[in-house]
């Protein structure tokens, strides 16, 4: 078994299992805690708990203008990063072929040029995020090892992916055999590293944001406040 076979076989299975079990463990450990029931009478005309939660989840997708340009720039950077990453992960033809092989699911791919642009934009946003974290006094003060580990683990699949994008995706898919076995194995292993790290660091915000915003929405809508 060479490195690529390991990455495609046991490596993928183990990392996916850690991802699923870890995410479930963290979510269940939090959600099994007792709720702090708000026994006060709700404000007259307050929306339902579900409506309050959904309002807050929706409201959190864009900062209020009162919080200034930093909030807008940070949000824009975040949107470009997340959208770029989604385009790369789910729009690149070889990625779709990989997903089809392991799950049977597939969809039309985006043109390579879109992927190249998305990768460029995503790398730029990661660079900006790191620059801000290293230079802004507030971010320097509050940053922890998780922030730098997560940044690195997010960055690695993108750069290792760029390293194997040596020809158009049609050419890659036309071949039966993988030419760049080791670089591809490294790329896949960085993805698996991300899956393994996911439940333990701040990548979990992908799941937690929904609950966190929703809980605040329930608390405040009960009082007649739109957060």
């Amino acid at each position, binding site marked *: 078994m060479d490195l690529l076979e390991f990455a495609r076989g046991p490596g993928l299975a183990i990392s996916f299992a850690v991802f699923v079990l870890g995410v479930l463990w963290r979510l269940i450990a939090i959600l099994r805690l007792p709720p702090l029931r708000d026994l006060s009478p709700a404000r007259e005309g307050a929306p339902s708990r579900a409506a309050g939660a959904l309002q807050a989840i929706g409201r959190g997708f864009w900062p209020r203008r009162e919080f200034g340009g930093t*909030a807008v720039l940070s949000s824009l950077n975040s949107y470009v990063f997340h959208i770029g990453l989604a385009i790369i992960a789910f729009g690149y033809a070889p990625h779709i072929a990989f997903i089809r092989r392991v799950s049977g699911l597939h969809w039309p791919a985006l043109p390579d040029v879109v992927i190249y642009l998305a990768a460029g934009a995503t790398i730029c946003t990661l660079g900006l995020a790191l620059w801000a974290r290293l230079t802004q006094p507030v971010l320097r*003060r509050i940053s922890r090892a998780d922030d730098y580990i997560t940044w690195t683990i997010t960055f690695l699949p993108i750069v290792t992916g760029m390293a194997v994008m040596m020809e158009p995706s049609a050419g890659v898919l036309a071949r039966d055999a993988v030419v760049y076995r080791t670089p591809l194995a490294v790329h896949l292993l960085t993805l698996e590293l991300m899956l393994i790290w996911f439940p333990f660091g701040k990548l*979990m*915000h992908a799941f*937690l944001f929904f609950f966190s915003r929703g809980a*605040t929405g329930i608390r405040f809508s009960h009082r007649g406040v739109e957060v």
Partner: protein
Amino acid sequence: MSTQTVTARPGYDQQGDQSDSARVDAALRSFVADFSVTAALHMESCVRCGLCAQACHFHLTTGDPKYTPVYKLEPFRRAYQREASPFAPVVRALGLARKPSIDDLHEWQELLYDSCTMCGRCTLACPMGIDIAELVKEARHGMFKAGLVPERLALMDRTARQWGSTATPGDDLADILAEVSAQHGVPIPCNMAQADILVTAAPAELGEHTKALADAAKILNRIGAKWTMHSEGFDASNIGFNNGDLELQEKLTRSLVDTAVKIGAKTVLLPECGHAYGAARWEAAKWYGNALPVRIIHMTEFLDELIAAKRIRVKPIGASATFHDPCQIVRRGGLEAAARRVLAALGFELRELPDHGVTGFCCGGGGGVVSNQRATPLRHKVFDLKRQQVEATGAEHFVTSCGQCRITLDMGAQHAQWDKRAESLLELVADHLAD
């Protein structure tokens, strides 16, 4: 806005004679006790984006990164990670989160008490929706257990535990009310055996703000309400809520509700006080269960309801006004529209502050900061932010609906030699009652 760093006087206060290790243990036990699902979700969700700093008046006016709201929770977070988080055993075994030390708790006393008003503006800025103000309140529970509270607040705590009020013993209430009554020429019933409304006060209304109390009496008498104040439950400004003293918070809350039940009152009327509203309106029920036996309302709601029901009429003032939204009443209380309806009834041309309503800036004195003289330099910096915003409106009147905000703003104005004073919404209504 200046970004010069102004820091509250370095140092900390401590109460009692616990050893350092006993203080740490007491704080940690409290930090991790009774973690609810919401608190845990909020502890887990932070991505360290730092946007909460853009909402905090203490950070904005000093530029000091230590005032970043989520940073104020650092010992609390570490305790959670070590003791209560989903991977706590791993965190402890690998030493991934250092156990908070006594030095940490000393250092964070300033961040939790001097430079946080629990106003919750950061909650609205957080893209993850983390209610940082509520977590600060929970962290204060641990600091109180450890005897690590600013001494001025601890002194008020001891007073309230003994008297049931930070202002006066209940035994003296009748005499004080008789003086206020004589001074303002308005009857103020005290200790009536039966009443429909139990009227409560903020400590300042028994001292420098007696006009507000007399004006409440004037309105209640005008509508012919059967009301009383009562020596067994009269101080609504719950110092236990601010200090993190849960026992005192319960005791003070129960004194109001139990007294109301005893005299057959269906309503507890809260004064123009923000934290009184937070403690009584939203937290009283947790001591009683679902069926809170009385309705608890803020003075602003009361005025709004009286005007809407045409039980009182007011003469229009016909001037411009701007309104300072008290955090606990508006952002964390939901009474933004009620205050504006009363202002409209008074005929004001309302000129909103650049930041108003749920995103309005705190006066800088909430959460006990107004009473914590150590924080005075910081408070003055925050006041300057409010002063600039008020001046930008060009409004003739500067109105608010919280006595503690008024005290904070008046102290700031005095320090800045600013001639504008915050006016009470209640007093404006009382002064302009139509015949």
